[in-house]
């Protein structure tokens, strides 16, 4: 029996066991490969998606447990103003080296700014510590997040 999940505003029926992690359903049942596999145990953050707006490790979330909650992924990030601003900041700061972890970094950063539009440096560090960047582009990720936070802050004045 298919598992019904709402992803990026669309209702999708996934023909897979209920205990299959969302990550593998996205990548190999639905062909949405923007969400990345890094560790499989929720330790690296590469697979981060939003579930009802909360940053969530999709490698550790069985599809059968999602229910009515709405999933959004990197593929729809550009549709939100904060997500779009972060994508642009990532390019402006030339954040990336290999880029493999960046979908997860962006999803986590978006959740941070959605819940805390003006984080301190320490709050950025703490919110992002769950996301590993093996190339260690941390300085640029931090700068990009802070730049968007400042811009949003100015826009609200």
């Amino acid at each position: 029996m298919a598992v019904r999940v709402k992803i990026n505003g669309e209702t999708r029926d996934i023909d897979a066991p209920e205990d299959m992690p969302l990550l593998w359903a996205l990548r190999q049942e639905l062909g949405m490969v923007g969400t990345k596999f890094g560790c499989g145990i929720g330790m690296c953050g590469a697979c981060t998606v939003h579930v009802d707006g909360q940053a969530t490790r999709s490698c550790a979330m069985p599809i059968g447990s999602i229910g009515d909650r709405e999933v959004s992924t990197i593929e729809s990030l550009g549709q939100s103003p904060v997500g779009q601003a972060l994508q642009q900041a990532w390019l402006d700061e030339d954040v990336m080296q290999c880029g493999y972890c960046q979908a997860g970094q962006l999803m986590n950063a978006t959740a941070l700014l959605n819940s805390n539009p003006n984080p301190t440096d320490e709050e950025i560090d703490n919110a992002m510590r769950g996301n590993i960047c093996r190339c260690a582009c941390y300085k640029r990720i931090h700068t990009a997040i802070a730049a968007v936070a400042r811009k949003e802050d100015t826009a609200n004045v």
Partner: protein
Amino acid sequence: MSDTATMDSGPALGRRAFLKVSAAAGGGLAIAATIPMAAKAMAQGGPAELNAFITINPDNTITIIGKNPEIGQGIKTMLPMLIAEELDADWDMVAIEQGDTNMAKYGPQLAGGSFATPMNWMPMRQTGAAARHMLLQAAALRWGVDIASLSTEPSVVVHAASGRRATFGELAGEAATLPVPDPSSVALKDEDDFRIIGTPIGGIDSPKIVRGEPIFGVDTQLEGMVYAAYERSPVFGAKLLSANTEAAKAQPGVIDAFTVEGNGNAQELVDGVAVIASNWWLANKARSVLDVQWDNGEWASHSSAKYEEDARRFMAEGKPQEELSAKGDVDSAFASAAQVVEGEYSYPFLAHVAMEPMNCTALVKEDGSIEMWAPSQTPQGGQTAVAQYLGVEPDKVTVHITRMGGGFGRRLTNDYMVQVAAIAKQMPGTPVQLIWSREDDVRSDFYRPSGWHKLSAALDENGKITGLKDHFVTWDIDGGAFNPALMPVTEFPFNYVDNVDYSLTKMPTAVPMGALRAPTSNAIAFVFQSFLDEVAHAQGKDLPTLMLEIVEGAEAEPDTMGFVGPQPGFKPQRLRDVTRKVMEMANWGQPVAEGRALGFGYYWSHQGYFAEVVEASLSERNQVQVHNVWVAGDVGRHIINPYGALNQVEGSVIDGLGQAMQLAVEIEGGAVKQSNFHNYQLPRMPMTPQIHVDWVKSDHSPTGLGEPALPPVIPALTNALHALTGKRVRSLPIDTSLFA
């Protein structure tokens, strides 16, 4: 200034071959390359291919091939910048495409050793210049003017005398019918006129990455594709006895399960069991019912504890098995020494843990040929290995180069390519994507070799080093062309001390080893720069002062033959300049904030000269904290892409700090104890220090940046901790109980 093809400027591109080099003993990395420049005129009004790298379209857009594999080092952006510069292209109109694996068409395609810049600095520029020359010729013919009266502006040929102009797109069709000039005869730009080289340019694939578009190897999707997981023994060197493949086949989603026999070469294929399913998660899950029986042989008794005990015993006995390099009369130097300094140092195995786990996609066709989508740093080597394994000619192996989620040297070894070929061979007509779990990755790596060194220095009454000994306990492994468990025979300061004896003892092991970013250097820099710091303290001075004294008045060393071509000799002036620069940047010798201390480290590797200073402190719980890192680097007179360059240095610094502070792979029962990021803990954002980078732009052709900034940061940190606490870190990773 303009460049000439001296040894130091990298190999120049001849008409047919720009590089023909066979590596020394071992011969695994022999490179003989050609870049045929055959132009091909396409149908009138269509794209015009001026050479293997450059296609110009009638709408004036240009497609440039990036030939080397992209692992995050920025090469897919940087090599086309060299071509576009000499082509005098409008960069905004340039699109870059990744070239497939093709030695005959593109020459060597390699992501390793920070070689891409020195190997390609001249050839890629000549490739662009040759195409520009053809466009000028086409305009000269069209307008009936002397080619010398023509010039270019970005993507436009200009005849200043008459005011006539034609875009590259308008001329390309005619240009493509003209004979191709000898690239080595074509004039290059005056380097003062560069407008792309030296300009910060963002990663060419970055817009796709922030949108989550499929560009990595593991993102490959093919019609009817199935997924494979591979169960192998955690104990290195084990042989497969039996597996319950029937049980696996009964699991949900599983399509097939079968045993695979290794080919006797652990660098290519070890025994294992393949499980194939409609979804990788299902395939991986079904591994748990395989009930595999292994013959572990003698290797299961091996452990890091045993290795440590053996190595310490060898060092205590003081009878090395063989000489690495020696000069003068070391015994006399020590017999007449006014003072002797001794120190033992050691460092652990390390894993690479690239973020994108190992994977490869393959389709075996009915005619026996195979098409592959390979995240490999050495796709040409992978092509050869797969061809040999399948018993087909290399031209039957098509290898598409995918972007990689990191390499760090792990993807120099193509075991996953041979593995997926072995699996796909059993399922002709069905595309197979092999994916490794993170646990597979951590426990089936080719590890940075661990090692032990007993160093001794003899000093005379003036403090001068008169004798130097290193007993290096390392591994008896077949390193092939490059043995990561050795060190350079003239490891600094070999050439600056009269009496030296570097000797080896090699221990047996089945642990597979390979190159990790800045191989050998990432360990040896810690050992020698720590020891020289000890020597400096024994003389009552600091390390940068000692380094400057050692090379005082020294001349440049002669060039040698390296792995893939001429290797410039050591230039003491470049050491002096980066050392003085970083001392100035860090206010070396001036008071620092309460509770903090500075440490210095220097290293020359991969043709780059780096001196670094770390400012560190200890927390109340004796945790190491790094506040600032100053980096002075000399990689020649141009920083080709300042964005990419800075990113590589910042990443290298944090990578090195992570290795120093918290990374180790341990062997227990012949297998790796660590398994994932909970017990192999990479650096995370909160530990990021302030990193200050500046360049010494010496008058040498530019060289690579993937590696040389990493090694010196490790001794810079441990030397800072010594300055802070008086305690010498002799073993990595740093054991903070030392400071209790």
